[in-house]
């Protein structure tokens, strides 16, 4: 029930915040914040109480309730270490989003918080639901409030960005729906039990060709979300046009649902097809690393630059997932958390700058360090995180991913590592354009971080350093999940080898 409560609280809180805002907008903000903080503290409490052992049972928390029995749809939710880590990230960035919107959002405050909390509810749902029908439902729940967040409270080109975001994710989501239904019917015809239950479907026997097509349907939704080049082009528009909270959630959380989907559904459901696709997928990952980095280097819009760095960093995720080993998988988990924090923070900083100087154009900035060293220092930390400086969480992630990928493909690892050099170039460009150099006209309009901004950014900074030095807290939580998923893929490989030996 805990997991249902997580989502239920968010949804109810969203409605309440909407209604209350008619009378008191500040109260609406406080309601939203309280709701997210309750979820955050609750989820952290679970993590702490379960430490250090996550291997005891299959799932830490599980809840099943038959809902529409005729179609085999159940309200089934479950959380393992991976889900729990991602849930905590969701609630943490959720709280960040509420706080950064405190001053930025003044228009239709109630509806804003309704959308914000419902997006969070959708994301939390995606991370815990294990009924495929319900999964698709939550996938959509993420989408529509996000569409409103971008389209209503975004920047100058918000309508275009929102529609583009909607079309990309909706079209790819529909392909996933087809695949879900395909899997449902194939399994139903084979066994006579029509069900959307994840565990039941894990046992489904699907023909090779059918498996490939079904996998592609799932993959379509996930690689658009992740995003993988060449399906990324919704992202720079959506990220740069969304309000700060929207950018934080998009970059910090929505992209993660893509990675989670591949890990949780694509690999276990279609291990054979996944293995076949591995080299292509890894190549696309590397292409994303390099292409994203190159484009990030060329941008003049700060938020757009950060958006392209996300493309690059998510390329590492793609590379890591399809390397199929424990190092790379744990690296991917860490990358999800680390990128959520570091990119989220960069968007918060972009928002803070925009609030002061009303532009995102890097060529108008410069020399801000003198007047606002605090923002400068915090930005420096996250810029260093983004270029993979050891001691910060992102390094752990990229080191493990590349180290794991090396065992799968030397050439692709070397190519991916080139992204580290490009990352240096675009990251230092941020510091140069904003903080260093002679003071620009904008410098006089700058003021250092307010208490509210510090409340958000200081914990994020500490967390990204903490995870760089003590990453094992995350790895312990996700170890079992990672090994289980890996086990499925390895078994499929072993079977394939055995088949090949038996039928030469």
């Amino acid at each position, binding site marked *: 029930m805990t997991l249902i409560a997580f989502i239920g609280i968010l949804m109810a809180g969203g409605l309440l915040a909407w209604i209350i805002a008619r009378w008191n907008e500040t109260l609406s903000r406080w309601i939203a914040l309280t709701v997210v903080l309750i979820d955050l503290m609750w989820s952290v409490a679970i993590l702490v109480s379960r430490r250090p052992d996550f291997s005891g049972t299959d799932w830490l928390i599980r809840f099943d309730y038959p809902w529409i029995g005729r179609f085999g749809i159940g309200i089934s939710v479950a959380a393992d270490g991976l889900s729990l880590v991602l849930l905590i990230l969701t609630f943490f960035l959720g709280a960040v989003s509420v706080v950064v919107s405190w001053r930025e959002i003044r228009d239709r405050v109630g509806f804003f918080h309704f959308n914000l909390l419902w997006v969070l509810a959708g994301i939390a749902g995606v991370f815990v639901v294990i009924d495929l029908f319900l999964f698709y439902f939550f996938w959509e729940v993420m989408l529509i409030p996000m569409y409103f967040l971008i389209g209503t409270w975004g920047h100058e080109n918000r309508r275009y960005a929102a529609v*583009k975001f909607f079309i990309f994710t909706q079209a790819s989501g529909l392909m996933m729906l087809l695949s879900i239904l395909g899997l449902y019917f194939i399994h139903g015809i084979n066994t006579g039990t029509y069900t959307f239950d994840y565990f039941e479907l894990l046992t489904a026997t699907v023909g090779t060709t059918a498996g490939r097509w079904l996998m592609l349907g799932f993959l379509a939704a996930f690689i658009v979300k992740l995003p993988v*080049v*060449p399906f*990324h*082009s919704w992202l*720079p528009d959506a990220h740069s046009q969304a309000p700060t909270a929207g950018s934080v959630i998009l970059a910090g959380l929505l992209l993660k649902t893509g990675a989670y989907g591949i890990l949780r559904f694509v690999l276990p459901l279609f291990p054979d097809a996944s293995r076949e696709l591995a080299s292509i997928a890894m190549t696309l990952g590397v292409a994303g690393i390099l*292409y994203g980095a*190159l*484009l990030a*280097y*060329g*941008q*003049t819009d700060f938020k757009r630059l950060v958006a392209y760095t996300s493309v690059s960093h998510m390329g590492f995720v793609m590379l890591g997932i399809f390397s199929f*080993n*424990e*190092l790379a998988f*744990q690296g991917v988990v860490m990358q999800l958390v680390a990128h959520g924090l570091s990119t989220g923070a960069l968007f918060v900083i972009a928002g803070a700058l925009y609030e002061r100087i009303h532009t995102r154009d890097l060529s108008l900035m410069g*020399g801000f*360090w*003198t007047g606002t*060293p605090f923002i400068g*220092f915090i930005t420096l930390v996250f810029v*260093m995180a983004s270029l993979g*400086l*050891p*001691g910060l969480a992102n*390094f*752990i992630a990229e*080191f*493990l991913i*590349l*180290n794991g990928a*090396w*065992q799968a493909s030397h050439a692709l*690892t*070397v190519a991916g*590592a*080139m992204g*580290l*050099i*490009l990352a*240096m*170039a675009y990251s*230092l460009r941020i510091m*140069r354009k904003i*903080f*260093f*150099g*002679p*003071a620009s006209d904008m410098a006089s309009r700058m003021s250092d971080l307010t208490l509210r901004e510090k409340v958000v950014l200081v914990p994020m900074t500490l967390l990204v350093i903490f995870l760089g*030095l*003590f*990453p*094992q807290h995350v*790895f312990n939580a996700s*170890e079992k999940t990672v090994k289980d998923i890996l086990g499925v893929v390895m078994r499929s490989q072993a079977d394939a080898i055995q088949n090949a030996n038996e039928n030469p």
Partner: protein
Amino acid sequence: MNAVQYLWLVPLLPLLGAVLLIVAGRNMSKPIIASIGAGSVGLSALTVIVIGVAFLSNPDVYEISVWQWIAVGNLTPSIELHLDALSLMFIFVITFVGFLIHLYSVEFMGEDSGYARFFACLNLFVCSMLLLVLAGNLVLLYLGWEGVGLCSYLLIGFWYEDPKNGYAARKAFIITRVGDTAMLIGLFLLFATFNSLDIETILSAAPSRWEQGSSIATVAALLLLGGAAGKSAQLPLQNWLPDAMAGPTPVSALIHAATMVTAGVYLIARMNVLFELSPVAMTTVGVVGAVTLLIAGFSAMTQTDLKRVLAYSTISQIGYMFLALGVGAWSAAIFHFFTHAFFKALLFLGAGAIIEALHHEHNIFRMGGLRKQLPIVFITFLAGAASLAALPLVTSGFYSKDMILWYAWAGEKGSGLLFIAGLVGALVTALYTTRLVIVTFFGYANTRVSKRPGWRMTMPLGVLAALSVVVGFLEVPHNFWHAQLISGFLGGVLPAAVIDSGIEAYEWALQLLAAVVTLGGIFIGYFVYMATPGLHELVKKKFPTLHQLMYDGWGFDALYTLLFVKPVTWLARASRGDVIDGIYTGIAWVAIAANRAIATTQNGVMRWYVLGIVVGALLIITLGILV
């Protein structure tokens, strides 16, 4: 365990200093900042001395694990400190020279508004550098490795208002990152083979896992060499160091002369077993060192900026260390690192005092006559310069360079060419050093001295000058005296250099040759720059192209700009609008165009609709008849 168990204090103290200054530095008065900044490193140096004494009475390898950092599969690096003779020498230099430079900076940076930021970065640097040399595994070493890179970036660009400084800072960080990436790939390769990144484990397993001369050992060693070349400013990644002089002078002394740039030497010495497995890699290291020492030495002869002369000289001297590593003279390389750290830090600090005294004048030809005006700086600078030029018998530089030359010639892995390169380098070194001293301190005083350094600047100069002379006697040639303390000390960690048999008797001849070459260089310098005024201008005019080439550091900057910087920036600019997005825009455009085209048929004119129906009906009938 004895005092060594407090080893963790050594990097922790500077780290605490850095954290304190970052968090609260802006609200502190300058004396407090100075005492935290210099005090933390001073305490760290004291700790090192206590530990050093304990170590000497009981030399061993000490491992101190602080916590388990990562444990994923076989990858289980800890935050662990590893102390042996090699790392002890390094931490001694880092904390001791580091403290002197911090002390110097207290006065040198006294007027600067970024006082706290300066000391925070410098403390963080000392901490990272200590972690680098104390790391028990390669992941932690890499943390220190990148940490010093970050501090170097921040300190080169310390005066950030000037875009030129920022450019130099980025250049340093990015070029070294190229090397670092090679090294990182090397780590992956090592991990894939040994299932561990623990240095001890790798070194003890390597000889049994890899055959002598196997290509995989060569690849691994060369990848590590890539990292070392980047950090230590060796060919082909050497061109960032001269520009790095944009940073404050104490930074140049500490980071870009004494410590960080020798990290590559440390890495190769530390991983000596891997390099010994691959003759190709060893030769490459030696050749890289030899070529670098020559081209940098020639460049140093033509520079007019005091700090750039010293920068090229540093590249050249590290070239000597690489040469020594390449011929398997491990202890000689570390000995030269040791002496170089003192005399080059001294030269930089002296240069800082001069530049400060002359209103930030960098051009040596606008200096002159400083001998009388800055006597303390002159005497100490002279001690450092003599050591750099390897003035026979009385300077430490002589002993360490002589040791390298000896092994380059007599060593089993030595060769005639490497030896000649070293010898020519010695001539060049003596020549540019003499030039530097003469032009700066003798002759007509072109600029008046505006202020003289105080005790916090002259004291470090004095201490370093004394050391520049004295530390040479720790290791004198076999045929002089039985004092081989350095190689004896390092004997347990680094293999001894093997020399060809029967050659030992000629050691005195080589020493004589080296001494003659050095004195020759000094004489040429004297002849060109002092005895015959105007001669150097004449030489310069005679070979303008060659002079320009040397002055520009042999055109590496231009080459890399053409090969890498321009294409990447062009590509980034060209694809700024995201080519792939164009495809989707195209799809959208086609959809809209098709919509418009079809929408025109819905025009409300009855005869068009009737025509449509008729044409459609005819089509269907025709098809029906035909099929």
